[in-house]
Protein backbone atom coordinates (compact mmCIF):
# COMPACT_ATOMS: atom_id res chain seq x y z
CA UNK A 1 0.00 0.00 0.00
CA UNK A 2 2.84 2.30 0.92
CA UNK A 3 4.24 2.09 -2.58
CA UNK A 4 0.96 3.44 -3.98
CA UNK A 5 1.02 6.34 -1.59
CA UNK A 6 4.59 7.03 -2.63
CA UNK A 7 3.60 6.96 -6.31
CA UNK A 8 0.75 9.36 -5.63
CA UNK A 9 2.91 11.78 -3.66
CA UNK A 10 5.57 11.81 -6.35
CA UNK A 11 3.00 12.51 -9.05
CA UNK A 12 1.61 15.30 -6.86
CA UNK A 13 4.94 17.10 -7.11
CA UNK A 14 3.95 17.87 -10.67
CA UNK A 15 0.66 19.48 -9.68
CA UNK A 16 1.99 23.06 -9.33
CA UNK A 17 3.54 22.92 -12.82
CA UNK A 18 0.41 21.40 -14.34
CA UNK A 19 -1.85 23.98 -12.70
CA UNK A 20 0.44 26.86 -13.58
CA UNK A 21 0.76 25.84 -17.22
CA UNK A 22 -3.00 25.24 -17.49
CA UNK A 23 -3.90 28.56 -15.91
CA UNK A 24 -1.62 30.65 -18.11
CA UNK A 25 -2.74 28.66 -21.14
CA UNK A 26 -6.45 29.11 -20.44
CA UNK A 27 -6.00 32.89 -20.04
CA UNK A 28 -3.98 33.04 -23.26
CA UNK A 29 -6.49 30.75 -24.93
CA UNK A 30 -9.45 32.86 -23.85
CA UNK A 31 -7.83 36.08 -25.09
CA UNK A 32 -6.75 34.68 -28.45
CA UNK A 33 -10.01 32.73 -28.71
CA UNK A 34 -12.06 35.89 -28.21
CA UNK A 35 -10.03 37.59 -30.92
CA UNK A 36 -10.60 34.65 -33.28
CA UNK A 37 -14.30 34.59 -32.49
CA UNK A 38 -14.61 38.32 -33.21
CA UNK A 39 -12.69 37.81 -36.48
CA UNK A 40 -15.08 35.04 -37.48
CA UNK A 41 -18.02 37.39 -36.80
CA UNK A 42 -16.54 40.38 -38.60
CA UNK A 43 -17.55 41.63 -42.00
CA UNK A 44 -14.02 41.28 -43.38
CA UNK A 45 -13.52 38.18 -45.54
CA UNK A 46 -9.78 38.18 -44.81
CA UNK A 47 -10.27 38.12 -41.03
CA UNK A 48 -12.87 35.40 -41.37
CA UNK A 49 -10.46 33.30 -43.45
CA UNK A 50 -7.57 33.76 -41.01
CA UNK A 51 -9.76 32.71 -38.12
CA UNK A 52 -11.07 29.67 -39.99
CA UNK A 53 -7.59 28.57 -41.13
CA UNK A 54 -6.21 28.89 -37.63
CA UNK A 55 -9.01 26.86 -36.12
CA UNK A 56 -8.83 24.17 -38.81
CA UNK A 57 -5.05 23.77 -38.50
CA UNK A 58 -5.02 23.62 -34.72
CA UNK A 59 -7.98 21.29 -34.45
CA UNK A 60 -6.69 19.09 -37.26
CA UNK A 61 -3.32 18.31 -35.66
CA UNK A 62 -2.42 16.58 -32.36
CA UNK A 63 -1.23 18.86 -29.59
CA UNK A 64 1.86 16.69 -29.11
CA UNK A 65 2.92 17.42 -32.68
CA UNK A 66 2.29 21.14 -32.16
CA UNK A 67 4.35 21.02 -28.97
CA UNK A 68 7.25 19.25 -30.72
CA UNK A 69 7.21 21.85 -33.49
CA UNK A 70 7.17 24.73 -31.05
CA UNK A 71 9.71 23.36 -28.54
CA UNK A 72 12.28 21.83 -30.90
CA UNK A 73 11.31 22.73 -34.46
CA UNK A 74 11.04 26.49 -34.08
CA UNK A 75 14.47 26.99 -32.41
CA UNK A 76 16.09 24.83 -35.10
CA UNK A 77 14.38 26.87 -37.83
CA UNK A 78 15.55 30.14 -36.29
CA UNK A 79 19.08 28.82 -35.83
CA UNK A 80 19.18 27.74 -39.48
CA UNK A 81 18.49 31.36 -40.40
CA UNK A 82 21.68 32.29 -38.60
CA UNK A 83 20.28 33.59 -35.32
CA UNK A 84 21.25 31.90 -32.11
CA UNK A 85 18.05 30.93 -30.37
CA UNK A 86 17.16 28.61 -27.55
CA UNK A 87 14.07 28.60 -25.32
CA UNK A 88 15.36 29.79 -21.94
CA UNK A 89 12.93 27.36 -20.36
CA UNK A 90 10.93 24.66 -22.13
CA UNK A 91 7.87 25.64 -20.11
CA UNK A 92 7.57 28.72 -22.34
CA UNK A 93 6.86 26.93 -25.64
CA UNK A 94 4.69 24.49 -23.70
CA UNK A 95 2.49 27.27 -22.35
CA UNK A 96 2.32 28.92 -25.77
CA UNK A 97 1.24 25.69 -27.46
CA UNK A 98 -1.37 24.91 -24.83
CA UNK A 99 -2.74 28.45 -25.05
CA UNK A 100 -2.79 28.56 -28.84
CA UNK A 101 -4.36 25.12 -28.92
CA UNK A 102 -7.00 26.05 -26.39
CA UNK A 103 -7.71 29.25 -28.32
CA UNK A 104 -9.07 27.28 -31.26
CA UNK A 105 -11.57 25.51 -29.03
CA UNK A 106 -12.34 28.65 -27.04
CA UNK A 107 -13.04 30.50 -30.29
CA UNK A 108 -15.75 28.00 -31.16
CA UNK A 109 -17.20 28.18 -27.65
CA UNK A 110 -17.23 31.99 -27.68
CA UNK A 111 -18.66 32.12 -31.20
CA UNK A 112 -21.54 29.87 -30.20
CA UNK A 113 -22.08 32.04 -27.12
CA UNK A 114 -22.23 35.23 -29.18
CA UNK A 115 -24.65 33.63 -31.61
CA UNK A 116 -26.83 32.42 -28.76
CA UNK A 117 -27.47 36.01 -27.62
CA UNK A 118 -30.84 37.12 -28.93
CA UNK A 119 -30.67 39.16 -32.14
CA UNK A 120 -32.89 41.80 -30.56
CA UNK A 121 -30.10 42.67 -28.12
CA UNK A 122 -27.84 43.92 -30.91
CA UNK A 123 -30.78 45.79 -32.44
CA UNK A 124 -31.65 47.45 -29.15
CA UNK A 125 -28.03 48.47 -28.61
CA UNK A 126 -27.67 49.82 -32.15
CA UNK A 127 -30.97 51.69 -31.88
CA UNK A 128 -29.50 53.58 -28.90
CA UNK A 129 -26.77 54.79 -31.22
CA UNK A 130 -24.05 52.37 -30.14
CA UNK A 131 -21.65 51.33 -32.86
CA UNK A 132 -21.08 47.63 -33.42
CA UNK A 133 -17.92 47.49 -31.35
CA UNK A 134 -19.50 49.19 -28.33
CA UNK A 135 -22.59 47.00 -28.60
CA UNK A 136 -20.40 43.90 -28.61
CA UNK A 137 -18.40 45.07 -25.61
CA UNK A 138 -21.25 46.32 -23.42
CA UNK A 139 -24.21 44.19 -24.44
CA UNK A 140 -23.35 41.04 -26.39
CA UNK A 141 -20.10 39.75 -24.88
CA UNK A 142 -21.14 40.07 -21.21
CA UNK A 143 -24.23 37.98 -21.99
CA UNK A 144 -22.27 35.51 -24.11
CA UNK A 145 -19.75 34.99 -21.31
CA UNK A 146 -22.47 34.08 -18.84
CA UNK A 147 -23.80 31.52 -21.26
CA UNK A 148 -20.45 29.92 -22.00
CA UNK A 149 -19.07 29.79 -18.46
CA UNK A 150 -19.75 26.03 -18.08
CA UNK A 151 -18.25 25.24 -21.50
CA UNK A 152 -15.29 27.43 -20.60
CA UNK A 153 -14.71 25.50 -17.38
CA UNK A 154 -15.04 22.20 -19.23
CA UNK A 155 -12.36 23.41 -21.61
CA UNK A 156 -10.16 24.05 -18.59
CA UNK A 157 -10.66 20.47 -17.38
CA UNK A 158 -9.76 19.19 -20.85
CA UNK A 159 -6.70 21.40 -20.92
CA UNK A 160 -5.45 20.10 -17.57
CA UNK A 161 -5.55 16.56 -18.94
CA UNK A 162 -3.96 17.54 -22.24
CA UNK A 163 -0.96 19.14 -20.58
CA UNK A 164 0.14 15.54 -19.94
CA UNK A 165 1.73 15.49 -23.40
CA UNK A 166 4.12 18.25 -22.30
CA UNK A 167 6.29 15.65 -20.55
CA UNK A 168 7.50 14.77 -24.03
CA UNK A 169 8.87 18.26 -24.64
CA UNK A 170 10.82 18.61 -21.43
CA UNK A 171 8.23 19.94 -18.98
CA UNK A 172 8.26 18.06 -15.71
CA UNK A 173 4.59 18.01 -14.87
CA UNK A 174 2.44 15.33 -13.23
CA UNK A 175 2.92 12.56 -15.79
CA UNK A 176 6.63 13.22 -16.20
CA UNK A 177 7.22 12.95 -12.44
CA UNK A 178 5.52 9.56 -12.48
CA UNK A 179 7.50 8.39 -15.47
CA UNK A 180 10.80 9.42 -13.94
CA UNK A 181 9.98 7.60 -10.73
CA UNK A 182 8.88 4.54 -12.67
CA UNK A 183 12.14 4.33 -14.55
CA UNK A 184 14.17 4.39 -11.36
CA UNK A 185 11.92 2.24 -9.14
CA UNK A 186 10.24 -0.06 -11.74
CA UNK A 187 7.01 0.32 -9.75
CA UNK A 188 5.07 0.78 -12.98
CA UNK A 189 1.52 0.14 -11.80
CA UNK A 190 1.74 2.26 -8.61
CA UNK A 191 3.50 5.02 -10.55
CA UNK A 192 0.78 5.44 -13.15
CA UNK A 193 -2.06 4.91 -10.69
CA UNK A 194 -0.49 7.72 -8.67
CA UNK A 195 -0.42 9.88 -11.80
CA UNK A 196 -4.07 9.14 -12.54
CA UNK A 197 -5.08 10.03 -8.97
CA UNK A 198 -3.14 13.29 -9.12
CA UNK A 199 -5.10 14.32 -12.23
CA UNK A 200 -8.36 13.25 -10.62
CA UNK A 201 -7.93 15.45 -7.56
CA UNK A 202 -7.71 18.38 -9.98
CA UNK A 203 -10.41 17.52 -12.47
CA UNK A 204 -13.16 15.98 -10.37
CA UNK A 205 -13.71 18.88 -7.93
CA UNK A 206 -13.68 21.24 -10.90
CA UNK A 207 -16.31 19.20 -12.74
CA UNK A 208 -18.43 19.12 -9.60
CA UNK A 209 -18.20 22.91 -9.38
CA UNK A 210 -19.35 23.27 -12.97
CA UNK A 211 -22.31 20.95 -12.41
CA UNK A 212 -23.26 22.90 -9.30
CA UNK A 213 -23.13 26.19 -11.21
CA UNK A 214 -25.25 24.80 -14.04
CA UNK A 215 -27.84 23.44 -11.63
CA UNK A 216 -28.02 26.74 -9.77
CA UNK A 217 -28.41 28.64 -13.02
CA UNK A 218 -31.10 26.29 -14.29
CA UNK A 219 -33.02 26.80 -11.04
CA UNK A 220 -32.65 30.57 -11.30
CA UNK A 221 -33.88 30.57 -14.88
CA UNK A 222 -36.80 28.33 -14.01
CA UNK A 223 -37.77 30.76 -11.25
CA UNK A 224 -37.63 33.79 -13.56
Amino acid at each position, binding site marked *: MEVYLQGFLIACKGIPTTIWVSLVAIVLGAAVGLLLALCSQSNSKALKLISKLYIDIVRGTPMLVQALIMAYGVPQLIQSMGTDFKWPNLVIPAVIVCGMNSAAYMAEIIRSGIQAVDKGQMEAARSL*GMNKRMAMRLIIIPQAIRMILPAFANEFVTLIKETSVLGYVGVVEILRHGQLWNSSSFETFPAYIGVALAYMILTIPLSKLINGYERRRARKEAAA
Partner: protein
Amino acid sequence: MIEIKGLHKYFGENQVLKGIDQSVNEGEVLCIIGPSGSGKSTMLRCINRLEEPTDGEIFMDGELITDENLDRIRTKMGMVFQSFNLFPHMSVLDNLTCGPVNVKGESKAEAEEKAKKLLARVGLAEKAGEFPRNLSGGQQQRVAIARALAMDPEVMLFDEPTSALDPEMVGEVLDVMKSLASEGMTMIVVTHEMGFAKEVADKVIFMDGGYIVEQGPPEEVLGNPQMDRTKDFLSKVLI
Protein backbone atom coordinates in the same frame (compact mmCIF):
# COMPACT_ATOMS: atom_id res chain seq x y z
CA MET B 1 -39.12 65.99 -39.41
CA ILE B 2 -38.85 62.57 -41.07
CA GLU B 3 -39.18 62.18 -44.78
CA ILE B 4 -39.22 58.91 -46.66
CA LYS B 5 -38.70 59.00 -50.41
CA GLY B 6 -39.11 56.09 -52.80
CA LEU B 7 -38.41 53.40 -50.22
CA HIS B 8 -38.05 49.88 -51.64
CA LYS B 9 -37.00 46.79 -49.75
CA TYR B 10 -36.31 43.29 -50.99
CA PHE B 11 -35.60 40.24 -48.86
CA GLY B 12 -33.88 38.15 -51.52
CA GLU B 13 -36.40 37.82 -54.35
CA ASN B 14 -39.25 38.90 -52.17
CA GLN B 15 -40.23 42.56 -52.50
CA VAL B 16 -41.59 43.76 -49.17
CA LEU B 17 -41.79 47.50 -49.79
CA LYS B 18 -42.77 48.73 -53.23
CA GLY B 19 -42.14 52.43 -53.13
CA ILE B 20 -43.09 54.25 -49.96
CA ASP B 21 -43.25 58.05 -49.78
CA GLN B 22 -44.23 59.54 -46.50
CA SER B 23 -43.40 62.37 -44.18
CA VAL B 24 -43.96 62.91 -40.50
CA ASN B 25 -44.04 66.37 -39.01
CA GLU B 26 -42.88 67.43 -35.61
CA GLY B 27 -45.37 66.56 -32.88
CA GLU B 28 -47.33 64.30 -35.18
CA VAL B 29 -48.45 60.79 -34.25
CA LEU B 30 -48.47 58.44 -37.22
CA CYS B 31 -50.04 55.01 -36.81
CA ILE B 32 -49.31 52.29 -39.33
CA ILE B 33 -51.85 49.50 -39.55
CA GLY B 34 -52.29 46.57 -41.86
CA PRO B 35 -52.24 42.77 -42.04
CA SER B 36 -49.10 40.84 -41.11
CA GLY B 37 -46.67 40.68 -43.99
CA SER B 38 -47.86 44.01 -45.34
CA GLY B 39 -44.42 45.58 -44.77
CA LYS B 40 -45.35 47.92 -41.94
CA SER B 41 -42.67 46.74 -39.51
CA THR B 42 -40.09 46.66 -42.29
CA MET B 43 -40.90 50.24 -43.15
CA LEU B 44 -40.44 51.29 -39.54
CA ARG B 45 -37.18 49.37 -39.25
CA CYS B 46 -35.90 51.00 -42.43
CA ILE B 47 -36.28 54.42 -40.84
CA ASN B 48 -33.51 53.77 -38.30
CA ARG B 49 -31.79 51.31 -40.61
CA LEU B 50 -32.26 48.15 -38.59
CA GLU B 51 -33.17 47.02 -42.10
CA GLU B 52 -31.04 48.32 -44.92
CA PRO B 53 -33.29 49.86 -47.59
CA THR B 54 -32.74 48.36 -51.04
CA ASP B 55 -33.56 51.69 -52.60
CA GLY B 56 -34.82 55.06 -51.45
CA GLU B 57 -33.84 57.91 -49.19
CA ILE B 58 -34.76 58.78 -45.65
CA PHE B 59 -34.22 62.25 -44.22
CA MET B 60 -34.20 63.28 -40.59
CA ASP B 61 -34.52 67.02 -39.98
CA GLY B 62 -33.62 67.55 -43.61
CA GLU B 63 -30.44 65.46 -43.33
CA LEU B 64 -30.09 62.38 -45.53
CA ILE B 65 -29.36 59.31 -43.38
CA THR B 66 -26.15 57.62 -44.50
CA ASP B 67 -23.77 55.01 -43.08
CA GLU B 68 -21.60 57.83 -41.78
CA ASN B 69 -24.18 59.75 -39.76
CA LEU B 70 -26.30 56.73 -38.83
CA ASP B 71 -25.09 56.26 -35.24
CA ARG B 72 -25.56 59.95 -34.50
CA ILE B 73 -29.03 60.06 -36.06
CA ARG B 74 -30.07 56.94 -34.19
CA THR B 75 -29.55 58.80 -30.91
CA LYS B 76 -32.39 61.09 -32.01
CA MET B 77 -34.73 58.17 -32.68
CA GLY B 78 -35.99 56.10 -29.79
CA MET B 79 -37.04 52.57 -30.69
CA VAL B 80 -39.42 50.31 -28.80
CA PHE B 81 -39.57 46.66 -29.84
CA GLN B 82 -42.32 44.08 -29.75
CA SER B 83 -40.17 41.82 -27.56
CA PHE B 84 -38.88 44.65 -25.29
CA ASN B 85 -35.19 43.69 -25.78
CA LEU B 86 -34.14 44.99 -22.39
CA PHE B 87 -30.55 44.13 -21.48
CA PRO B 88 -30.99 41.18 -19.11
CA HIS B 89 -27.56 41.47 -17.50
CA MET B 90 -28.22 45.02 -16.30
CA SER B 91 -30.50 46.45 -13.65
CA VAL B 92 -33.43 48.56 -14.80
CA LEU B 93 -31.52 51.71 -13.89
CA ASP B 94 -28.43 50.61 -15.84
CA ASN B 95 -30.62 49.80 -18.83
CA LEU B 96 -31.66 53.45 -18.82
CA THR B 97 -28.24 54.99 -18.19
CA CYS B 98 -26.20 52.74 -20.48
CA GLY B 99 -27.03 54.66 -23.65
CA PRO B 100 -26.71 58.24 -22.34
CA VAL B 101 -23.44 57.48 -20.51
CA ASN B 102 -21.68 55.47 -23.21
CA VAL B 103 -23.07 57.04 -26.36
CA LYS B 104 -23.72 60.65 -25.38
CA GLY B 105 -21.04 60.93 -22.73
CA GLU B 106 -23.36 62.08 -19.97
CA SER B 107 -22.05 61.72 -16.44
CA LYS B 108 -23.28 58.75 -14.45
CA ALA B 109 -24.93 60.98 -11.83
CA GLU B 110 -26.69 63.10 -14.43
CA ALA B 111 -27.91 60.03 -16.31
CA GLU B 112 -29.14 58.35 -13.14
CA GLU B 113 -31.08 61.38 -12.03
CA LYS B 114 -32.80 61.58 -15.41
CA ALA B 115 -33.40 57.81 -15.42
CA LYS B 116 -35.15 57.97 -12.05
CA LYS B 117 -37.42 60.72 -13.30
CA LEU B 118 -38.28 58.70 -16.39
CA LEU B 119 -38.98 55.59 -14.32
CA ALA B 120 -41.32 57.64 -12.16
CA ARG B 121 -43.02 58.90 -15.29
CA VAL B 122 -43.75 55.35 -16.50
CA GLY B 123 -44.85 54.43 -12.98
CA LEU B 124 -41.91 52.21 -12.10
CA ALA B 125 -39.81 54.36 -9.75
CA GLU B 126 -39.52 51.57 -7.23
CA LYS B 127 -38.15 49.08 -9.78
CA ALA B 128 -34.84 50.86 -10.48
CA GLY B 129 -32.75 48.18 -8.79
CA GLU B 130 -34.61 45.19 -10.21
CA PHE B 131 -33.44 43.06 -13.10
CA PRO B 132 -35.68 42.79 -16.17
CA ARG B 133 -36.44 39.10 -15.58
CA ASN B 134 -38.25 40.01 -12.35
CA LEU B 135 -40.67 42.35 -14.12
CA SER B 136 -43.94 41.56 -15.89
CA GLY B 137 -44.18 42.03 -19.64
CA GLY B 138 -46.03 45.30 -19.29
CA GLN B 139 -43.46 46.59 -16.82
CA GLN B 140 -40.61 45.53 -19.10
CA GLN B 141 -42.13 47.37 -22.01
CA ARG B 142 -42.59 50.50 -19.92
CA VAL B 143 -38.91 50.28 -18.94
CA ALA B 144 -38.05 49.88 -22.63
CA ILE B 145 -39.96 53.07 -23.42
CA ALA B 146 -38.12 54.85 -20.61
CA ARG B 147 -34.81 53.51 -21.93
CA ALA B 148 -35.53 55.00 -25.34
CA LEU B 149 -36.63 58.30 -23.79
CA ALA B 150 -33.42 58.47 -21.76
CA MET B 151 -31.60 59.39 -24.98
CA ASP B 152 -33.80 62.50 -25.31
CA PRO B 153 -34.99 61.45 -28.77
CA GLU B 154 -36.85 63.72 -31.14
CA VAL B 155 -38.99 60.92 -32.45
CA MET B 156 -40.12 57.60 -31.03
CA LEU B 157 -40.57 54.50 -33.18
CA PHE B 158 -42.84 51.77 -31.82
CA ASP B 159 -42.81 48.34 -33.47
CA GLU B 160 -45.98 46.56 -32.33
CA PRO B 161 -45.25 47.46 -28.70
CA THR B 162 -48.22 45.60 -27.23
CA SER B 163 -48.35 42.52 -29.45
CA ALA B 164 -46.27 40.34 -27.10
CA LEU B 165 -48.18 41.35 -23.98
CA ASP B 166 -50.85 39.55 -22.02
CA PRO B 167 -54.16 41.35 -22.64
CA GLU B 168 -54.40 42.77 -19.12
CA MET B 169 -51.05 44.53 -19.58
CA VAL B 170 -51.78 46.24 -22.88
CA GLY B 171 -53.55 49.15 -21.20
CA GLU B 172 -50.66 50.23 -18.98
CA VAL B 173 -48.31 50.45 -21.98
CA LEU B 174 -50.84 52.28 -24.15
CA ASP B 175 -51.42 54.75 -21.31
CA VAL B 176 -47.72 55.64 -21.25
CA MET B 177 -47.78 56.07 -25.03
CA LYS B 178 -50.88 58.26 -24.87
CA SER B 179 -49.30 60.53 -22.30
CA LEU B 180 -46.20 60.82 -24.49
CA ALA B 181 -48.34 61.79 -27.45
CA SER B 182 -50.21 64.37 -25.43
CA GLU B 183 -46.90 65.95 -24.43
CA GLY B 184 -46.16 66.49 -28.08
CA MET B 185 -43.70 63.68 -28.82
CA THR B 186 -43.39 62.81 -32.48
CA MET B 187 -44.31 59.14 -32.78
CA ILE B 188 -44.48 56.49 -35.47
CA VAL B 189 -46.40 53.49 -34.22
CA VAL B 190 -46.90 50.16 -35.95
CA THR B 191 -49.87 48.68 -34.14
CA HIS B 192 -52.86 46.39 -34.15
CA GLU B 193 -54.55 48.51 -31.48
CA MET B 194 -57.22 50.25 -33.54
CA GLY B 195 -58.64 51.95 -30.47
CA PHE B 196 -55.29 53.55 -29.79
CA ALA B 197 -54.91 54.65 -33.42
CA LYS B 198 -58.37 56.16 -33.40
CA GLU B 199 -57.81 58.06 -30.20
CA VAL B 200 -54.20 59.21 -30.53
CA ALA B 201 -53.14 59.26 -34.17
CA ASP B 202 -53.01 62.43 -36.23
CA LYS B 203 -52.65 60.31 -39.31
CA VAL B 204 -53.27 56.63 -40.03
CA ILE B 205 -51.63 54.67 -42.82
CA PHE B 206 -53.12 51.41 -44.00
CA MET B 207 -50.51 49.22 -45.66
CA ASP B 208 -50.98 46.05 -47.68
CA GLY B 209 -48.68 44.14 -50.00
CA GLY B 210 -45.82 46.61 -49.65
CA TYR B 211 -47.87 49.67 -50.61
CA ILE B 212 -49.59 52.42 -48.69
CA VAL B 213 -53.17 51.70 -49.69
CA GLU B 214 -54.89 54.49 -47.84
CA GLN B 215 -53.94 57.30 -45.51
CA GLY B 216 -55.53 60.16 -43.70
CA PRO B 217 -56.95 61.23 -40.33
CA PRO B 218 -58.13 58.29 -38.23
CA GLU B 219 -61.81 59.24 -38.48
CA GLU B 220 -61.55 58.87 -42.26
CA VAL B 221 -59.28 55.82 -42.65
CA LEU B 222 -60.80 53.93 -39.73
CA GLY B 223 -64.29 55.48 -39.74
CA ASN B 224 -65.01 55.82 -43.41
CA PRO B 225 -62.46 53.85 -45.48
CA GLN B 226 -62.60 54.32 -49.23
CA MET B 227 -60.59 51.36 -50.48
CA ASP B 228 -61.98 47.83 -50.55
CA ARG B 229 -58.84 46.36 -49.03
CA THR B 230 -59.03 48.75 -46.09
CA LYS B 231 -62.70 47.96 -45.56
CA ASP B 232 -61.98 44.24 -45.76
CA PHE B 233 -59.14 44.49 -43.21
CA LEU B 234 -61.11 46.66 -40.80
CA SER B 235 -64.11 44.39 -40.98
CA LYS B 236 -61.91 41.58 -39.66
CA VAL B 237 -60.44 43.45 -36.70
CA LEU B 238 -62.33 44.66 -33.71
CA ILE B 239 -62.32 48.35 -33.03
